[in-house]
């Protein structure tokens, strides 16, 4: 087991209801997981908890046998080795594309840094854009810089929050293909959040469907289609969750 999220609960400060309730998920190395759900269902919250930007009330988080969180331990985000691509990309506006990508490589030697920069720029096909500032790029290019920046330090896991939401429809299709290629090429385990089922079906090895902070469905994209076909309603039994979880294990 590569990533294990066990029984995680969380509510925001001053919020009345739980943003996430008993969230459990196990992920294999190299797997691409999609979290699907309406706005406000808790998708971003899952990513923020994994990244260490929020602290769960209870539960356990483990990556590659290292405990990130339990009753006693809370590992700060900078110690987790998890990359994140933010919904608005959060590219540092005062730094160039190259400086943005080098930002997370401060532990490397100079030569290694330069090499890695070239590698990831090639990966996202932006070799000639290193000297530009984020505001001089198109939306699609900005997004690729954000991905390059997140993968550059070789994280165990990369999290993408609605990577397509800021792009126009035409671009979305193209970028979706690109992203799949990038993720597969880099062979990084990844979780991406979306509210568009099509994204999930095309990109994901497995889909997690969230509703009001609870898991409604976990399984392969084709399983999800099957249940639609059989019942005509969206599956929501907890038993199904268990079954599909064990099915993958």
């Amino acid at each position, binding site marked *: 087991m590569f990533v294990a999220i066990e029984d995680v609960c969380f509510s925001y*400060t*001053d919020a009345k209801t739980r943003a996430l309730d008993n969230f459990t998920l196990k992920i294999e190395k190299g797997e691409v997981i999609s979290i699907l759900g309406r706005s406000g269902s808790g998708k971003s919250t899952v990513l*923020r908890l994994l*990244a*260490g*930007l*929020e*602290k769960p*009330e209870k539960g356990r988080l483990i990556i590659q046998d290292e405990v990130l969180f339990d009753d006693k331990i*809370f590992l*700060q*985000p*900078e110690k*987790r*080795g*998890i*990359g*994140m691509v*933010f919904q*608005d990309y*959060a590219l*540092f*506006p*005062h730094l160039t594309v190259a400086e943005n990508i080098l*930002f*997370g490589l*401060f*532990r490397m030697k100079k030569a290694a840094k330069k090499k890695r920069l070239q590698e990831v720029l090639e990966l996202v096909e932006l070799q000639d854009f290193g000297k530009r500032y984020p505001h001089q790029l198109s939306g699609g290019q900005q997004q690729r810089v954000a991905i390059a*920046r*997140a993968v550059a*330090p070789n994280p165990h896991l990369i999290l993408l929050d609605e990577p397509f939401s800021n792009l126009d429809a035409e671009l979305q299709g193209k970028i979706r293909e690109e992203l799949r290629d990038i993720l597969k090429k880099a062979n990084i385990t990844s979780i991406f959040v979306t509210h568009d089922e099509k994204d999930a079906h095309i990109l994901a090895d497995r889909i997690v469907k969230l509703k009001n902070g609870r898991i409604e469905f976990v399984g392969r994209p084709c399983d999800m289609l099957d249940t639609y076909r059989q019942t005509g309603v969206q599956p929501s039994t907890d038993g199904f969750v268990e079954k599909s979880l064990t099915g993958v294990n």
Partner: protein
Amino acid sequence: MQHRFTNINAWTVSAVIIIFLLFLPNLTIVTGLFTPSNENWEHMKKFVLWGFVKNSLILTAATAFFTILIGLSLAWLIAQYDFPMRHFLKWALILPLSIPPFIGAYTYHGMLSYTGVIQTTLRENFGMAVNSAYFDIMNLPGAIFIYTMFLFPYVYSIAQVYLSRQSASLIESTRILGKGPWKTFFQVVLPISRISIIAGASLVVLEVLNDYGVVKYYGVQTFTTAIFQSWFGLGDIESSIKLAASLMGFVILILMIEKLLRGRRQYSYSTTKVRPLPLIKLSGWKAAAAAGYGLFILSLAFFIPVAQLIDWTLLTFGTIPMGAFMNYVRNSVFVAGLSATLIIAFALIVGNFARMVRGRLGKLLPRLTVLGYSIPGAVIAVAVVTAFIGLDRFLAPFYVWAGFSTTLVLSVSIVLLVTAYIIRFFAIGYNSIETGYDKIGTDFRDASRTLGLGVTKTFFKVDMPMMKGAIISGFILVFIDVLKEIPLTLILRPFNFDTLSTKAFQYASDEKIMEASQASLLIIGISALAIVFFYKFLERELD
């Protein structure tokens, strides 16, 4: 509860200490209320207290009324009509803020006195022997005039921005309904700009209560002058603490009234883009009247006093030894620069803490420190001195051990003065920094942390460079406020330590009005430059 503090680290600890230290001295004032009263206080309560209260009430109420009248009418003209010189007046009408009221006070007194420019001109050019009493400005109405002239821009600037952003349709529809401009003003503009008027007027009221220079110079007894009198005149610290506590109660009452009047709506602009009000072009006598009105107020509140100060400076230039003058400049720049730097540093720490804690607590705790700005300087002075004397008493064994010749060390040092400035002006810097943090949000910080940088490194590599604008503007605002400050500086400065403003005040108090002009002009020049800088800066930001 526990998970709120995800980071019990150096940031949290420093922020809590700063908040505590900024708030603590004010508590010493409150405790003063409960100490048994002495004879002086009983006497004061019986015979003179009501006089101060009455004067303070009249001053604040009348100044609030006149600043609203002038500030709002100008704001309305600028926001609604197009007329010659509108563009110039729009920003120039903020300039009177660069003249500290006490400088305006002695300048007007100088101009109106028997030997001043007005009476001399009347006598010599028109042969009119006028009764000097008509020109006496050194009284309560005179003080109201001075405050109105030099404080109305608070109301003007806030109301002008607010009115310019009001939805055009609201005002247009009343016009279409056939209401004239006067009816529109009273039935629509006044009610909708209520929140901005209250915001501006409460700043004015707090400034009036804080002021010492004008009332002292014009011989009007108020709370502030009474605090000085019982402290320096009678050497009665206990009574000044009691006076300070009463004044603080008065201020808290005003803040509560403000909150009540504002209602539940916070003062803020709607975020959606509103169609700007199309300007109505004035012509003929109406255009002339509008421009004339603006220019008339601007002349009274800026050009005339500045021209007089320039005249006096030219007359006396060279009589003040340059060495001494440069020394005042150095002292001013030193205390203002040091206080502004510390305030910005503290504000950055507290602001970052507020971001980390989040929730109600994160918003509430820093609010405590912001209280200082509504507390008059004389009250803060009393509080800080009381606290520092206590601190010196506590440290006395250490001083003896270290071989100091006295056990009053901190309470007579520049540390005292700078501490007081920090408490009084922290809010100015904090507002600017808080806006800066709000503007950049938390995504950049979060991104930096997922890329492997801790809170502190993130602060220096991401937050600081992205908040350059907020840091610079906060620094400048605090700097000019310290430069102009009078009551705190007079009470707390170390022996023989003079700044531009204390020197100007002393010269003026000794009836050496002309000698005061040079220092005054420099203060006004620096403040005016800062105001122009901000106007241009803000204008660019808003585009």
